[in-house]
C-alpha cells in the first residue's frame, strides 16, 4: 500500500525533501573551476618569482582581479560543499558532525571574504 500523496510520488524525494540541489551546485562550481584553475596555474607560473610591485599589478589589473575573485568564490563554494559531503559520509557522531559542518561553512565564508577584500583593496589601489 502506498500512503504517499500523488504529488510526493511524482517528486520522489523521500524524507529529506531534497533532491539533486547539492549535487547540481557541486557540478556547477566544478565546471566554473575548470577554466578558473587553468587561469590560476598559468598566472602563478608567471608571478611565482615576481617582486611585490608585479604581484600587486597582476591582482590589481581588471582581468586579474576579476578572475581572482571568481576563482575564490567558486573554490570556497565548491570546497565547503565537498567537505560537507565527506563529513556526512564519515562522521557519524551527531554533535561532531554538526560542529564540523558549522566550522567548514563559516571558515569558507571567512576565507572567501578575506581573499575578496584583499583583492578589492589592491584593485582600488588602497
Amino acid at each position, binding site marked *: 500500500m502506498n500512503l504517499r500523496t500523488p504529488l510526493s510520488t511524482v517528486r520522489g524525494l523521500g524524507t529529506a525533501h531534497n533532491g539533486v540541489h547539492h549535487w547540481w551546485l557541486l557540478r556547477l562550481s566544478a565546471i566554473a573551476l575548470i577554466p578558473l584553475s587553468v587561469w590560476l*596555474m598559468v598566472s602563478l*607560473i608567471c608571478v611565482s618569482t615576481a617582486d611585490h610591485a608585479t604581484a600587486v599589478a597582476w591582482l590589481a589589473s581588471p582581468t586579474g582581479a576579476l578572475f581572482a575573485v571568481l576563482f575564490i568564490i567558486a573554490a570556497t563554494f565548491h570546497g565547503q560543499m565537498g567537505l560537507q559531503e565527506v563529513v556526512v559520509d564519515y562522521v557519524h557522531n551527531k554533535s561532531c558532525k554538526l560542529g564540523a559542518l558549522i566550522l567548514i561553512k563559516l571558515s569558507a565564508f571567512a576565507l572567501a571574504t578575506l581573499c575578496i577584500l*584583499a583583492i578589492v583593496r589592491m584593485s582600488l589601489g588602497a
Partner: protein
Amino acid sequence: MARSPPVTEIGNGVVGVSTFEQAEVRKELAMTIRERPLSPHLELYVIQKPQFTMALSMTHRITGVLLFFGLIIIAWWLLAVVAGPEAYTTAQEVLGSWFGRLVLLGWSFCLYYHLCNGVRHLIWDTSRGMETAQIERSGIVMLVVSLSLTLLTWILAYASRGGPA
C-alpha cells in the same frame, strides 16, 4: 533480485495459524533477511581486494580536502601582498624554501589531480564511459595527464626564472 516485503508485513496475512506461529515465522524470516549480503561494504574492498579505481576515488576526496586547506595558503599569500613589500618578501621566502616548495608541489599535484578526475566525474555524469574497462583506462589517462601537468608547471616555473635559485 526481487525485493521482499518488510518483515513486519510477512505472516500477518497467513490464514489459519496462531499469533504465536506468525511471530515465529516473522522471527525466522528476520534472521534470514539479516544474514543476506548487503551492498558492497568498504571493508570488502580494503581487506579482500584493493582496487585501482577505488584508490583513485579515495585520492579524489583526499586531494579535495587538502585543496580546501590550500585555500588558507592562498588567503595568507594574498594578505601578504596587501600588507606590503616586507610581508610579501617574507611570504615568498617561506614559500620558496625547500619545505614551502614541497608543499606547493603537493598542492599543484592535488589541484591537477582533482581537476582531471573532476572532468572524469563530469563525463560519467553524462552516463558515458561507465564500463569497467573504460573506467580503468580513463583512470590511467587521468593519472598520466595530472602528473604531466604537474611536471610541466614546475618546468615552466623554473624556466621563467632562469633556473633554480
